[in-house]
């Protein structure tokens, strides 16, 4: 379904211009569907998630209304095994601009990025439990972070930036798991979502979106879908694209680089929270081995800490046991674990993948 072919252009200031000369009035065909999403930038944060009218009723189905497009990054951030559903909405007539394979799309004012965090098979009743819905809304000046915390009845989520822990026990592939799930405080958002202190989305980079997605109306490339709907101006044919790190059919190195990109690069970048450490984990920088920390001596000696091991390098080829990255991924202690936030459990599959990859590397760091 295509969005309006610009009968009317709804400009940023909300001024209506007629822009058609030979097709005035309604066409003979069916009227264009209009997105029911409600957004007044002067009135946010709305107290309830339902106030935005992003989803049909019942809210907990997370069934998007017209204009709210689902998306999914190819590789996703690990957040203690929580499942996620993500959506994009933009005001009518506005669209995002391509800025580079590895740069987030430049979104128009009024864009809402929606990310719902939930677990399936939550004990005792093996039901689904949605914990939080995080919104990023592009205002005139900057991105705003707004978090909505779901009630136990799963009927509504309420604006709440305080942060809290929610104990969850659930079945993951037949194995019972527990987590004290962290809903972040508002101050936590910026530490990942920033470049040079300016708030930014992370997952909406063309390199992460360039894949097929099963929409209700059929499978389609996500960038193509956004373009067809009018949410994206244009994009190049060739995009340097990450792989899904969970896809074992992909080359190991690309999987690891894709994992580091989505889990680590937002801090470990030139303008990020942890810019003073050597690694540069963005996908388009990790074809250069030192950016991955290969044969780089760590600044901080973590060997004094429990489970800190005895790493000699950030990554020592062939030797996970001498690689700081391995220990930092394979611990829950908060002063050495990485990533610093979003993770309190060990991401077992990622640790196994990184261990396998380090073991496969050659070189003696001399």
């Amino acid at each position, binding site marked *: 379904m295509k969005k309006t072919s610009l009968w009317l252009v709804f400009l940023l200031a909300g001024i209506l211009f007629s822009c058609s000369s030979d097709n005035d009035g309604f066409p003979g065909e069916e009227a264009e569907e209009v997105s029911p999403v409600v957004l007044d930038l002067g009135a946010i944060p709305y107290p309830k998630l339902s106030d935005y009218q992003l989803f049909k009723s019942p809210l907990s189905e997370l069934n998007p209304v017209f204009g709210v497009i689902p998306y999914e990054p190819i590789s996703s951030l690990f957040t203690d095994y929580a499942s996620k559903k993500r959506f994009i909405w933009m005001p009518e007539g506005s669209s995002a601009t391509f800025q580079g394979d590895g740069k987030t799309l430049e979104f128009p004012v009024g864009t809402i990025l929606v990310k719902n965090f939930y677990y399936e098979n939550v004990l005792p009743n093996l039901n689904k439990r949605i914990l939080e819905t995080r919104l990023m809304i592009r205002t005139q000046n900057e991105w705003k972070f707004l978090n909505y915390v779901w009630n136990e009845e799963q009927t509504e989520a309420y604006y709440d930036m305080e942060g809290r822990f929610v104990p969850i026990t659930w079945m993951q592939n037949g194995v019972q798991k527990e987590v004290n799930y962290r809903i972040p405080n508002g101050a*936590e958002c910026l530490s990942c979502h920033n470049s040079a202190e300016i708030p930014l989305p992370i997952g909406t980079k063309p390199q992460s979106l360039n894949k097929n997605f099963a929409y209700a109306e059929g499978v389609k490339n996500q960038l193509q879908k956004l373009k067809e709907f009018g949410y994206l101006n244009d994009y190049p044919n060739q995009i340097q694209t990450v792989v899904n790190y969970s896809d074992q059919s992909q080359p190991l190195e690309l999987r690891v680089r894709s994992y580091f990109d989505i889990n680590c690069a937002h801090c470990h970048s030139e303008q990020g929270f942890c810019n003073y450490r050597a690694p540069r984990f963005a996908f388009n920088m990790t074809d250069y081995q030192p950016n991955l920390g290969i044969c780089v001596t760590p600044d901080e000696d973590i060997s004094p800490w429990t489970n800190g091991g005895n790493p000699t390098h950030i990554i020592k080829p062939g030797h996970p046991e001498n690689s700081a990255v391995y220990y930092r991924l394979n611990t829950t202690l908060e002063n050495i674990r990485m990533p*610093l936030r979003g993770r309190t459990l060990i991401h077992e599959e990622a640790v196994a993948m990184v261990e396998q990859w380090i073991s496969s590397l050659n070189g003696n760091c001399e």
Partner: protein
Amino acid sequence: MRSKLLLLSTALGISSQAQLSFTAQNVPVQGTYRMCVVDMNGDFLDDIVSVNSNTIFVLEQTESGFEPKSYQTPVAENLPGWSFTAGDFNGDGYNDLLYGGGSGVTFMLSDGTGSGFIKKTPSQYIFSQRANFVDINNDGLLDAYVCHDVAPSVYFLNLGFNSMSSHQGGLGDFPSGGHYGSVWIDYNNDGHIDLHISKCGGNEERYTDNLYRNNGDGTFTEVAAEAGLNLKTQTWSSAWADYDNDGWMDVMVGVSSTSTGGHKLMKNNGDGTFTDVTAGSGIDTFSGTSWEYIPIDFNNDGYVDIFGSGNKILLNNGDMTFTPISVGFSTGSAGDLNNDGFIDIFAQDKVYFNDGNENNWIKIITIGTESNRNGIGARVELYSAMGKQIRDVRSGEGFSQMGTLNTHFGIGTDSEIIKVVVKWPSGIVDTVENPPINQPLVIVEGETTMSVTDVENLQFSIYPNPVKETLNIQGKSLENADYQIHHLTGTLVMKGKVSNGKVNVNSLTKGIYIISVTQDGKTSSYKFIKQ
């Protein structure tokens, strides 16, 4: 169950004054968080403290080794994943603990028995980094300061009775944080405790270090730029000490990453400014990086050394230059774990006992009365033939660990100490002349100004001292004698007539007072401590 460990005696034949070596000994440490050496049972001997979410494990120092103790606590919501801090926050005679976690802090406050703990978890979100106990508003009660990694730093003002108020902003103010290592020092010798914050990460403004000057009137002014300490290196802690014994606190700003520059040694000019004296100091060629930098005189030569991680101690050569020496431990907690006057290190499951040498020493135990019980924030001065040394009593140095609250001095080959002066946060000054060396010295705030005056006039004595409720006045013919009680500052706070040999002082606030008794035209005075 009790078990005692014998300390290994490691007396070595030592010739060099600067001799420094350590002997490792395993200790039966329990608990995940092993970051603290501090006295826990009120005997002023340093103990080893480690914790889990519901237990405090203490290896109590005794004359014959360590005695394991463990205390159940309420379950802590926040654990000391980032920093561990100790001090007698509630003033009950036992040190309390502050766990600095990634989502907030939890206080474990002793309940006055030495074996029970009351938990206080403020609701505020804090990505805690270094925390300190310090009397920020100088009301005699310890407050707590907590560096925030992703927002303005937070502090908790002590309201007494285990209650506190939470404050954010004004002391470490960058909106997205970057506050890593706070240390409270008196950099300008004005008697008011100042705050230095080591900063790191993000953009330049975020990682520029802060210096907050205490104006003495409850306000602070950020003066890093005018002091020359607005350094833009990536640092998680800084080691403050008077490295050249000129009477002013210098600072080694040690980096955790060299991405925007290396370590700096900044000499205090004594006029509120600092000069970069890194070049040629040995600090410039030291290649280690770390988040811990702690000042300690390890070899008791009277010059403060620097302990970081990376298995190195930077030994002070006595001329503002340093020489790194290798040691068998990295990050650890510092204290005197065998009461021999040489600072040892506890790390993970081992104590690295300082083998010592022939240098002389003293350690000062400061007990505040008007000021906070630990005397945190006091300036301690030591005068000996080699000159004057200074220390600030501090809780929370380096980035993560907690070390002894006793104030430790080496005096090299000097065989006597001319005097020790303690300038308390209250303004009271105590001077102890010619104290014995090579042993602890307890100084109670106000004690050296406690002697009876005019004893020839009117003979009487008072007890108990310190007093809680009733002061007994003992002497001849004192019934119905007039008395006056002045605060040490001179304010008249009570007057009346002695009745049944007693004066009820229950209504007085904690502090030091002078009672004067007059009979038949004769007056004599005593000083006493109201608890």
